[in-house]
Every structure is written in C-alpha cells, then in structure tokens.
C-alpha cells in the first residue's frame, strides 16, 4: 500500500480534478473538494484509512464494508465535490469499523470526516469518542469541547466530557458538565452518577448516596450503580444496606443515549455480532433481548447452532416452552440437512428431551434422550435424564441398567444415583436390593437428613418399622426443619390442615428464607379461605423470586377472592409483563377485565385485545366465551351473542348439558343487548380453570 498519508493538495484550485478521479487514490490523497466555489479555504488533508483484514470474516461483513468504502470512494471522487456527503459517508464507514472492533480504521474515518466537515459537531464527537476509547483522554477532552463549541448543549458530549474529566481528575470541570447536563435534563441518570462519583471522591458519601439513589431510580437497569451505592453505604457505615446493594450489583453501565454510538448495533450484518449480543443478554437475564438477538443471528445464519441453543434457552426462560421446542426442532431439521456435527445434533436432542420433561411429557422426553444417546453415548447427563423420565413413566426395568452405568460414570454423584436406583428397585418389588442401595447412599452422605428420611420411609414401607424409627431418630429431633416440613406435608396430604399450617409456620420460623415452604403455606392458606394471609405469603415469594409464575397466579386469585379487583388488575398487568406468554394469567386478565362486577376495573377493549391474542394459543370453550364477553363489554353485543350461541350449540351437540346451561344463561343477557358481568369472584375464577374440553 502506498504511504501517501499526510500529503496535501493545493487548495486553491477550483477544478478538483487532480487525482481524485482515480478511486484507488482517493484514500491516499488530500481532497480539494472545496474547489467547487470555495477558493481560499485551506485544503483538507486526509489520512489513509487502513483496510482491516476481513479475509476470514463473514461474507455479509465483507460486502457491507466494501459497499460503504465504495460509497466513500465515489463521493470523494465526485465532481463537484460534496464535502458534507463525503464526511457523512466516512463517518458511517467509521461507525461500521467501530462496531466490528477495528478502532484504528474507525479513527482514521472519523478524523477524515472531521477534516472534511470541521464545523460538524457529530464528527468531532465521534472522533472524541474513539480517541478516548484508544486511551488518549486528553485528546478526547479537547475534541468533546470542540463538539460542544459547535453545538452548545449537546447533551451526550456534555456527559461524555464530564466522564473524561472525572477520569482525568479535573473535578471542577467535570462538575460543571454534569450540572449543565442536569439543568438541561433533570432526569439525566448519567449526570447524577457523575455528581455522585465527584461527591464520593470529595469524601462526601452522604451526598454521593443521594445522587446514586436518584440515578438508580432513573436508570433501574444500570446495576453498576448499585456497586457505587453499595460502596457509598459502606463508607456511611450502613453495612447491611451496602451488602444488599453490592450483592445486587452488576456491570450494566448507565447509558448515554445519542444518535451516533447508541444505535451502532443496528448496523451489524454479521451473525456473530448477534450471537455475542444474545450471549450478553442471557448473562444479563434479559431474555426478551436474547430472543431478539438470537433471532437476528438465525436470520443471517439459519444453521447457527449457538443461536438455536440460545434462542431455545431464552424462550424457555420466558415460559414459552412451545417456542423453545419449535426452535430446537427447526435446528434439528437444519442439522439433519446440513453438515452439523453429531455432537450438535445430540445436544439439540438432549435439550429437547429436557424441555419435554419440563412439559410433563416424559414419553416424548425419553424418546429424545434415547435418540441423543444413540448419536453420542458419552453423555451421562442425558442418561440420567433418560433414566429419570423412564422412572416417572413407571418403566423402572428400563431405567435400572441406566442407573447401573451411571454409577460407573459418575461416582461423584453415587448417592443420588443410588437413591434413584433404590426407588426403582422398590417399585420393581426388589426390596432388599433397594434397601442395600439406600444404605449405601446414606453411608456416602450420612449428614443428608432428607436422604435418611427417604431411607426410613422405604424401611417402613417394607415393614422394617424398628429400623425405620431408628433412622428417623438419626435424622434429627422433632425441631429439625426438614422433619417438621415432612410432617407438615404429611398432615396436609392427610387433610389435617391446621396442624399442617402450624408445621409450615414452624419451619418458616426457623428458616424464613425457605420460599418454597412459604409458597406451600400460601397455597394452604388459600385452600382454607384465609386469602389475606395467602396474599401476604405469595407476595413475599414473588419479592424473592419475581419469576415465580405460580405465586403470581396464586396472589391474583386470592386478591380476586378478596374482591380487591383493582389490585388484582394491577398485579396481573405486572405479572404479564414478565410472563407475556402465560395463557392462564392472560385468561384471568381478560376475564377480569370483561366481567368483573366493579365497573371502574372493567376495560372491554383491553379485554378484547388480550382475549384475541389468547385465542391464538388456546381456543378452548371458556377462552372463546371470554372473547364473546369481551366483545359484549366493548359494546359489540350482537357479535358476542352470535359467538355465544355457537358455543351453546357446540356444547349441546357434545351432550355437555351442564356447560350448555351455563353458557345459555349468559347468552340470555347478551341477547338482551347487555354485557354480562360476574356476580362475584368465583364466577370469574371458575371460568379460567384449565379447560380440557
């Protein structure tokens, strides 16, 4: 490559013909673009823009870069020259390079853009950004200042300049930037963050805490703020609060939104870029973002094993098991038609098996696991899951040899495997062998009380009462939480609810962090009609595990039963923001909005929208009825009546007289041109019970 960087063309000529017609030379030579009607201005000297090695890059990336470079070439060679357009094209090319992590090429582009259009704040800003990124904050500072001169009040430049000055220890200057940013936008979280850091550096943790708390309110996803806040609480001696914030901290930074850097990701053409985005989203626990990123990766590379796995995982996390299964099945089809590794196929099948098991479809799960193992026998995890599925299906004879092999493969998990094998043996009527396995498992984990209790149960089941009692004694006294819990569950299952409730309460007194037990108590309270108590317990479970779908459902059900309909509506909305695909919650929401007795809580249009979406995944009788009732609440009673009439007819033709009578009762109201409303909570809830018709 020629080394002609730094050459300057005479700027006085207005023809602009010198060399610029030769595209290849356009990068190397200074540009006399201003020739067209701007004599007297100095010539712009352009830097050579390196050609990053893209030989191993995805073809889409090579093409993207080539097209953008060509655009730049053409603009630089055009006559009359259009400096602004050339600068914009260079900046765009620079952003592409920045995106793919070629900072040197990006810097050359931004430098040239800024030289071609020195009065454009955007190019100064981009150059400042890349310069700072390259470890030259002093230069970055000067460039940000220049951008601000060109565009006073340019908020992203103000905030980034403040950060640079903070890094450089220029605290007074930084304070001025952040205060100016805050004056322009009182909700600028980055400004509060900067002022917090300045206060912390000045030894004023109390003031720092105020800023960090406000920043966190404004940017709740920026969990890096929790670290700053935690450190500040530490310095204030508020140790417990410090620990809490630090434990919740992460590395999501406070965003500075601008039209140049923030949307950089939208330029990406490589599947790899989206794979990385997907991975980061998964790490952040942001599954919606992960779905979008992996979806984009699959659009670019339909056979991407990483994208298939990632998308399925994210969908599963969002509760969309059907979507996850469909994704993996598509991946399997791709793998079968392509040149995927056997290991990849095996892994897809294994994950599919896991999802089927999660959906309670153990037969399908077992089939998947077996297929996975046929492709790659060296998968102890798949074998364990296959054995467990077979056990759940009652196919203990088939499970047994798998457990035998697992004992050899996973000696470190021998106690668990022995426990499962023993259970299988019990079910096969091979009691003595089962007890031998239990005994070995207990020897391996003598302090594992639940395991010992399982052993005791087995002994009791096989008529060895004395030994069973001895094992129970060894498992611990009556005050032990596990023993209490076990007893409480037994009492609940036996219908001795008050004793069970006392038992769960005793467990929670000892172990208040046992949210699984709190959930069980909440269910029991609901069962006993003590809905307020149930709501309180469900809420604590949700606080600890916001994605606990059953607790969400339990809470809203209890609220409806307490006739706290408005609150139920709010909580349902919150739950559905997390579980947008949970059909049961969605049905409850639609039914509530369409039929709740309290007029202010009803919202026919929203009910209709939810019900319509719901019908796409569940067209059961009750969902269709909810749709009809939502139509009525929206004022479309004639359509509602027509739909309800069809439902009545269907029920009658199936001979389901009870259902037909219930549907007909509502039809009478609809036929009279009125919407139908429930008389109380039970009428709302009954209709949303799982519909197997």
């Amino acid at each position: 490559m020629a080394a002609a960087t730094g050459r300057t063309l005479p700027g006085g000529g207005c023809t602009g013909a010198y060399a610029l017609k030769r595209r290849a030379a356009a990068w190397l030579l200074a540009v006399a673009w201003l020739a067209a009607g701007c004599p007297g201005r100095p010539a712009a000297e352009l830097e050579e823009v390196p050609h990053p090695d893209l030989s191993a890059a995805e073809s889409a990336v090579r093409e993207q870069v080539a097209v953008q470079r060509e655009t730049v070439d053409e603009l630089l060679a055009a006559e009359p020259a259009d400096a602004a357009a050339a600068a914009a094209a260079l900046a765009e090319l620079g952003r592409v390079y920045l995106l793919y992590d070629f900072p040197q090429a990006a810097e050359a582009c931004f430098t040239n853009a800024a030289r071609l259009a020195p009065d454009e704040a955007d190019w100064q800003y981009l150059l400042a950004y890349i310069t700072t990124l390259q470890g030259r904050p002093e230069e970055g500072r000067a460039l940000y200042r220049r951008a601000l001169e060109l565009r006073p009040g340019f908020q992203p430049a103000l905030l980034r300049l403040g950060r640079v000055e903070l890094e450089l220890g220029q605290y007074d200057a930084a304070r001025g930037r952040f205060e100016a940013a805050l004056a322009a936008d009182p909700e600028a979280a980055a400004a509060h963050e900067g002022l917090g850091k300045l206060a912390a550096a000045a030894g004023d943790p109390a003031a720092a805490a105020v800023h960090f708390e406000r920043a966190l309110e404004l940017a709740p996803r920026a969990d890096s703020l929790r670290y700053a806040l935690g450190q500040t609480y530490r310095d204030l001696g508020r140790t417990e609060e410090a620990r809490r914030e630090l434990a919740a901290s992460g590395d999501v930074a406070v965003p500075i939104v601008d039209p140049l850097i923030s949307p950089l990701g939208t330029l990406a053409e490589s599947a790899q870029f989206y794979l990385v985005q997907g991975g980061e989203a998964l790490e952040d626990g942001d599954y919606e973002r992960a779905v979008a990123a992996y979806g984009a990766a699959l659009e670019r590379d339909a056979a991407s094993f990483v994208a298939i796995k990632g998308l399925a995982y994210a969908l599963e996390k969002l509760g969309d098991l059907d979507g996850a299964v469909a994704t993996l099945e598509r991946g399997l089809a791709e793998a079968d038609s392509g040149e995927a590794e056997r290991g990849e196929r095996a892994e897809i099948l294994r994950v599919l098996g896991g999802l089927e098991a999660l959906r309670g479809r153990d037969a399908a799960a077992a089939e998947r696991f077996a297929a996975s193992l046929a492709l790659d026998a060296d998968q102890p995890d798949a074998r364990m899951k296959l054995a467990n599925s077979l056990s759940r299906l009652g196919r203990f004879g088939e499970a047994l040899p798998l457990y035998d092999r697992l004992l050899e493969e996973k000696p470190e998990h021998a106690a668990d495997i022995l426990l499962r094998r023993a259970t299988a043996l019990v079910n096969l009527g091979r009691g003595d062998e089962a007890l031998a396995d239990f005994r070995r498992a207990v020897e391996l984990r003598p302090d594992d009380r639940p395991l010992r209790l399982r052993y005791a149960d087995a002994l009791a089941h096989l008529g060895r009462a004395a030994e069973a009692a001895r094992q129970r004694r060894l498992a611990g006294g009556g005050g032990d939480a596990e023993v209490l819990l076990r007893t409480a569950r037994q009492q609940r299952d036996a219908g001795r609810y008050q004793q069970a409730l006392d038992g769960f309460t005793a467990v929670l007194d000892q172990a208040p962090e046992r949210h699984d037990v709190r959930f069980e108590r909440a269910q029991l309270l609901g069962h006993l009609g003590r809905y307020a108590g149930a709501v309180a317990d469900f809420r604590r479970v949700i606080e600890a595990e916001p994605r606990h779908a059953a607790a969400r459902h339990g809470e809203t059900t209890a609220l409806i039963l307490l006739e706290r309909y408005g609150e139920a509506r709010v909580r349902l909305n919150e739950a559905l923001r997390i579980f947008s695909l949970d059909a049961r919650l969605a049905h409850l929401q639609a039914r509530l909005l369409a039929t709740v007795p309290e007029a202010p809580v009803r919202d026919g249009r929203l009910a209709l929208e939810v019900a319509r979406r719901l019908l796409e995944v569940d067209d059961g009788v009750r969902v269709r009825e909810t749709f009809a009732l939502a139509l009525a609440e929206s004022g479309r009673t004639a359509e509602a009546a027509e739909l309800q009439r069809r439902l009545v007819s269907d029920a009658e033709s199936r001979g389901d007289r009870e259902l037909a009578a219930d549907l007909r009762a509502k039809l009478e109201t609809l036929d009279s041109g009125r919407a139908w409303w429930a008389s109380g909570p039970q009428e709302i809830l009954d209709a949303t019970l799982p519909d197997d018709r």
Partner: protein
Amino acid sequence: MLVAALAAGCASPEERSPDASDAGPVTGPFVDHSAEAGLDFHHFNGMSGRYYMAEIISPGGALVDYDGDGDLDIYLLQGTMLGSAGVDEAPRPPRHPTPLTDRLYRNDLAATTGGDRSPRLVDVTRRAGLAASRYGVGVAAGDYNGDGQVDLYITNLGPNQLLRNAGDGSFDDVTAAAGVGDTGWSVPATWLDFDRDGRLDLYVGNYVDYPFDEPVLCRDLTGARDYCGPASYPSQPDRLYRNRGDRFEDVTAESGLGSAPPAPALGAVAADFDGDGWPDLYVANDGQANNLWINRRDGTFSDEALLAGCAVNGRGKAEGSMGVDAADFDGDGDLDLFMTHLVAETNTLFRNDGGGLFTDHTDVAGLGAASRTRTGFGAGWLDYDNDGLLDLVAVNGAVKKIEALARAGDPFPLHEPNQLFRNLGGERFEEVDGGEPFTLSEVSRGALLGDLDNDGDTDLVVANNNGPARLLINRIGQDRQWVGARLTVGRPARDALGARLATTAPDGTERWGRVRADGSYAAANDPRVRVGLGDGPPPASVRVHWPDGRRQVWLRPPAGRYLVAAARAPTP
C-alpha cells in the same frame, strides 16, 4: 489463516527486535542482559492454528536461590504441543532443543572488570534431575518441609507437580506422596501459613475446564476465528491444601474457599490485608469478580471482596484480571493492590484505606489511560530507581488478535511493548522510558522481580510466550542508598513469608517492605526485602514485624547490603 502464515516462516519476535547496531546511546533504567548472561531459553507454546486458548496463557517462572549460595537462580516454564499432535508436527518447530522441559538456570555471579557483579547463568536442568515436561504455566516457591531448601510447586495445564529440593542440587517429584497433584488447569499458586502453625500451606488457583477433544470455536465480531475467553468454558474450583507435616490435606471445603462459585483464577497474593496479623488471600479472576479471602483465624476464610471494594473496579465492572501484586505504595503501612487487565479495560490500583477496605485509585493515580490499549499480565511493585517510592511494571501481550498486526501479516499478532510507571510522590504515576527492552514488542506473560546481581536494586526476568525469556538488568537503582534484608524463620531457616520491614527516616518518614515470593503472574519472586532510600540520609531505624506478631528493631542499620535476621519458628 494463522497456520499458513506460520508455515510461510514470517518474522519471529526476535526479528522484530531493534537491531543492536542501530541502537543509540543506552537510555532508561533497564538493559537486556540475556545474551551476556547465557539465558538462552525460548518458550514454545504449541501453536497449531487451532486457536487453543491454552497456548496464549503461559508462561511464568521463578527466581529462587535453589542452591543456597546467596544469589537468585531462574526457573522457566516450557510448553509442548497441545491436543493430539506431536512436537514434530508443529507448524513452527520449537527453538529450544527437544525434549521440551522446564529449565533451571543456576546463577554464578561473576565479577566484572568494574568490580560489579553480573549474572552468569548455567543451564543445570539435567543435573537437577528435573523432569517437568508437561505444559508448564506457573511456579510457587517455598520451603514446605522446613529443611532450609526452597521447594517448587509447578502449575501445569494438567496435573501439577511438587518438586522437593533435595539440597544437593537436585529435585524430587513428590507430588503423589504429598497429595497436591491438582489435575486441572492451574495458573497461580502461593505458599502461606494460614493457620500459623509454622508450616507452609498451599493455595492453588485454577482457571477453566478446557476440553482439547472438543474445544469451543470462538470468533470475533466479523465472524473470523479468534481465541476464546474464559467465559466460553466452565471455571474450575481453586484449592487450599493444609500442610500436615508428612502430607497435605485438601481443606478447600472446610476452609470456606469452596463456598464461592468457581471463577477463572489467574493471579494470587497471600498477605495480611486487614492488618490483624493473619495472612489473607487475594485472588484475581479473569472476567469475574475477584476474591478477598479474609482469614478468620480459625482455619476458615470469608470472601469480603465486594464490601471491601476490591472485587470489581470502581465502575462496578468485573475485569479480566491477570497478574496482581501487593505493596504499600503510599507509605501508610497497609497493603495496596495493583493488577493488570485486558485491552479496553484499565490496569487497576486499589488503595487500601486501612483495615482492608479499598478504593479504586486508578484514575487518581493516572494509571487508567496508559493501560487501556494494552493487555497486561505480569505486574509488580518495584522501586527501580531506589528513590523510596514504589514504581510499577506491567508486561503485556494481547489475547485476541491485534488487528493492525494481523493486517500486516504478523504470524502471532498478539505482541505489545511492556510498560514501566514511575511513582511521582505517592499519589500519581507516569509511564516512563524503561530502556531498550521496553521498546520490544513481545507476548509477555510472567514478570519475575528480584535482585539478580545482588546490587540492591530490582531486576526483571520477562517470560515471553512463544518467544525468548529476557533478563533485564537494572543499571540505575544501585546508584542510590538502600536497605535490604533476608528475613527468615526457624532452623533450618526458611523465608519468613509475610514478615514486614519498616525503615524510619530521621524525619519520621516510614517505608515498608514485605517478605513475599508470590505476586505478579504465575511467578515466584525474590523473597528478600529492599527499601530504597533515595538521596536522603540513612534510616534512623529498621523495624521488623514478624508473622507471629513479634517485633524487632535495629537502630542505625547499615545501608547498601543485605542484612540477615532470623526469628524462632512458631510451635505447630
């Protein structure tokens, strides 16, 4: 493709070095003395074009006085082919003669015509009976059996080795008998007497579970192949072994170290960070929060790094921590931390505000910007000019292809120059010219710190990946006054790891040094303490704080030579 480029025989790192004949007058404090001293070690990383992550992580090394003759010898770690291929299939054959093994160089200090002493290194690997032919990563040096001879614990990609110094110039592999053959991919290790029973216990930091048979394929954002990072693999748990006299007991679980989720450890320092007299442990993890294991004085530790403010950087971000070193840079009597990180991150300085609570001091110290474009590994505190203020060295080398080098057709496009930072007065640092060796661009990993010519200043050995080891002699520190000491404990004497030495100037100013061998990256360093005195008067006194809490004071100590002091061994 990398393989093709290798096969084409592109420029080697040595060929990138400036031609000596072109060099102008010698500037900077360090000169490359490798050739003169006879250091001919050349690391082989087993690179095959398959982008095995392991090929870019090694090596470290050790400075130890293995023969007890009063000068530092050099132990260097060698690699081998990775995966199933043999060395004869290497696209780029090893420079060192095969079979490839770690190497031990004995230092026979030679007097120069000017009356100084100069390292003269003799390869005694075979004579020492060393059979370390695994893929070597790091070293911890300590006298674990109290026989007065320093022993070596070698961390490998694969089973580690404990080499007992037989005292006759040879080493025996006693790994199996001692029960410390961790089979993972270990990088840092450090000896510490965490239960203060007088016997050195052993911490081993593990990196990731790397499957050669099915490595993950990693790509850069354009989709081109590149090296993976640690997030692509499950981390392996670290280990703590308690010295029971005849063998070691794995106490990872009961000590509490097993309570933290496994993280990819690359650096470790054992030192008393909270000033309670008991050794704590700082572990630098690659891409995950670091650990500060505070010794609870009952055989257990608790990780207090988050609350202490040294788990992640001041922006709340876990960084790719590599090397780490602890020293009192601001003269306030407690230990501060410096660690190296990935490109686009900064090297980080955590200032101890007393009692083991830290503040990220990187920006205030002016260390951020200078490190943002480099990937640092070896890291160390050293007072290279003996002005009484601790300076910093960071040796660098990328872990992802450097685009500009790849574009230029470089066969191993990870090399970067190393950096020296001068302490400007206890608060700020500035990058300074370290001399000609600091203009070289190599893939440096280990930085071993020690006084190899016994002239009272700190020299360096830089262990390069896929390149030559370099002996950098400090040619300016000895021009200033200094106090040095070898502090030992017990009989036979072993280095009193953790002992601290304070010099007090007539005006009351204190400077602290510490007996240590760990720190930096995968390295064992000179355990002797040196404190530079600058141009000021000799100290009024020197005070030693022994690990068991006792103190000892010397009034008007002699400067310019190493003192020797011994303490009684604690009763086990």
